[in-house]
């Protein structure tokens, strides 16, 4: 399994190269540059040229990119054009907020989706199933920022129970977490339902029932563990997506996270900041997906066995064959 992990980590290199290249070049294609944002209104053309020279913007794109990359492999993500602060510092300042919001949303999403998905799978085809699915669909169709605004109107403005924005303790986490969580819920509920439906008529559940296992345990233990693989795949993808994907909600709730950092930096053509943040997000995403893949092995022994044969080579193969023929 270690070899597999190593291989996946090595494969991360071309991914990161591709991502950084794309981001860097696309940013260059966009009209304007950081100087347009930074320079005071009364700056002369010469002042602007001088600033470009200071930032190194007057050099050709390829040279700038290679320069950036050679710094990057040495662990230096450069400085923000705007603030002059190291990119790493700005990123690491915002990342915990985004992670916190991400996990809170995930708790909301998983907490709602698993019970709802299992419930409707058990009542497949009945009106209860249909109502659950409509609920889940609502979660998907309602735009995040709109729901966020409505929640804010109700709970912050009208009732005054919760703060309308900022990152100030648990209370300020609730509304944004619900906003993102309900958005993620739709996919997860549907996945849980269809995955449970696949499992629910399997022969081995009949075996469990014939043993005298109660219906509750049949569903929660015997069925759920078999249905888990697609479910954790979706959870993993959603978790990975949160770090870069909660831009709208972060803006609505003025949540000081990575999503807002990226948008703000984009607006000011702060190339090192955007590229750095996106590279970090990509890395996080890939590592989460890798963890999910590894998690499969713990859920399903058949997948674990595949890792074992891949790693162990010949001796292990023979052992398996002997066992099978025994």
């Amino acid at each position, binding site marked *: 399994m270690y070899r597999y992990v190593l291989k996946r980590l090595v494969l991360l290199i071309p991914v990161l190269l591709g991502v950084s290249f794309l981001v860097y070049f696309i940013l260059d294609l966009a009209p304007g540059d950081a100087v347009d944002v930074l320079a005071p209104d009364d700056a002369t053309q010469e002042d602007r040229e001088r600033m470009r020279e200071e930032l190194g913007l007057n050099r050709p794109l390829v040279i700038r990119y290679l320069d950036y990359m050679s710094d990057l492999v040495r662990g230096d993500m450069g400085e923000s054009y705007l603030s002059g602060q190291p990119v790493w510092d700005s990123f690491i300042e915002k990342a915990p907020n985004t992670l916190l919001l991400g996990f809170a949303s995930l708790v909301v999403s998983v907490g709602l989706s698993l019970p709802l998905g299992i419930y409707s799978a058990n009542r497949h085809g009945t009106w209860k199933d249909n109502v659950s699915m409509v609920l889940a669909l609502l979660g998907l169709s309602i735009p995040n920022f709109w729901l966020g605004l409505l929640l804010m109107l109700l709970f912050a403005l009208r009732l005054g129970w919760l703060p309308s924005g900022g990152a100030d303790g648990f209370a300020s986490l609730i509304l944004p977490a619900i906003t993102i969580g309900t958005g993620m819920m739709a996919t997860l509920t549907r996945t849980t339902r269809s995955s449970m439906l696949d499992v629910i008529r399997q022969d081995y559940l009949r075996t469990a029932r*014939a043993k005298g296992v109660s219906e509750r345990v049949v569903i929660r233990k015997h069925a759920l563990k078999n249905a888990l693989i697609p479910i954790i795949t979706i959870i993993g993808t959603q978790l990975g997506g949160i770090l870069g994907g909660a831009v709208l909600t972060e803006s609505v709730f003025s949540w000081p996270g990575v999503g807002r950092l990226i948008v703000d930096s984009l607006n000011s053509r702060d190339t090192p900041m955007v590229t750095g943040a996106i590279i970090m997000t990509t890395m996080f995403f890939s590592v989460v997906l890798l963890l999910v893949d590894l998690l499969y092995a713990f859920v399903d022994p058949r997948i674990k*066995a595949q890792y074992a044969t891949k790693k162990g080579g010949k001796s292990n193969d023979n052992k398996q064959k002997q*066992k099978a023929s025994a």
Partner: protein
Amino acid sequence: MNGVNDDIVLQVEDLTVYYELEEETVKAVNHISFSLKRGETIGLVGETGAGKTTTALALLRLVPDPPGVIKSGKITVCGNDMLSLPVQKLESIRGKDISMIFQDPMTSLNPVFKVVDQIAESLEIHEKLSKTEAHEKALDMLETVGISRSRGGEYPHQFSGGMKQRVGIAIALACSPQLLIADEPTTALDVTIQAQVLDLIKDLKDKNGTSVIMITHDLGIVAEICDQVAVMYAGHIVEHGSLDEVFNHTLHPYTEGLFNSLPNINDRKSELKPIPGLMPDPTNLPEGCAFAPRCEYATEACKTTQPELRTVGGTHKVACLRYDETDFHINRGKKHG
């Protein structure tokens, strides 16, 4: 057990099971009755789709619902009225008093749990054993069915088909049930393993006095281990009696057809005589005898009148109109007298 019929482990009366689908109703089991004494083995014989497995599932109240519906009947297992029991009580009987070996060993074990845990589970539920005790006893069971204890920690995918079936048997026998339903326990297995599995069931039957329902389409297996035989066709029992009665004094034309389609070891040159035609569509059973369209003895009356299962002597019962005629007998009967 409830006193009066101490010896009767299972009593099935007038059991009818339908699968009610949106567009049609599959009449899987129609008005069947039989009973089983302690230590006795009954063979349920018939071709695929005759309603054998549905009958077995109904005994455990495990007919998939929807679409399966038990339309009528009474099932008594060890004095418990299975169809009216509250679910909790039902769960305490399943796996303890009555258990089942399923047909397809490949799909009937849970792929994500260790084999030993799957056996131990019913011990934990019914015998109120601790986790370690149940685990220990499950390993004993594994050994009983001929699998080394050291393999207990493995998962079903690491086992061959025959071993999986033996695990299925270990699960079914873990709590020494009074009634064991074996649903084609050998169909998915190689011939060499078949004999092992049969021996195993026989052994346990002798040791524990377990009553067995052996569901099969293999008449050889029936001859080997059954005391009673019930032949099923299109959801009906068409002939029912002791092994000797059904095998040596066959009455029903369908049973005769089953025997004729077996190779005869004494007459290797004789051609196999398959039963012509197919079993009728269970969503659209004929008005009269379900076997009439394939029966060489059928008369006009057979096509319109449902035959009742009637006793013809001893415990031997047959559902065939032609026995209204006193001198009627099938060809096989002639040969054997």
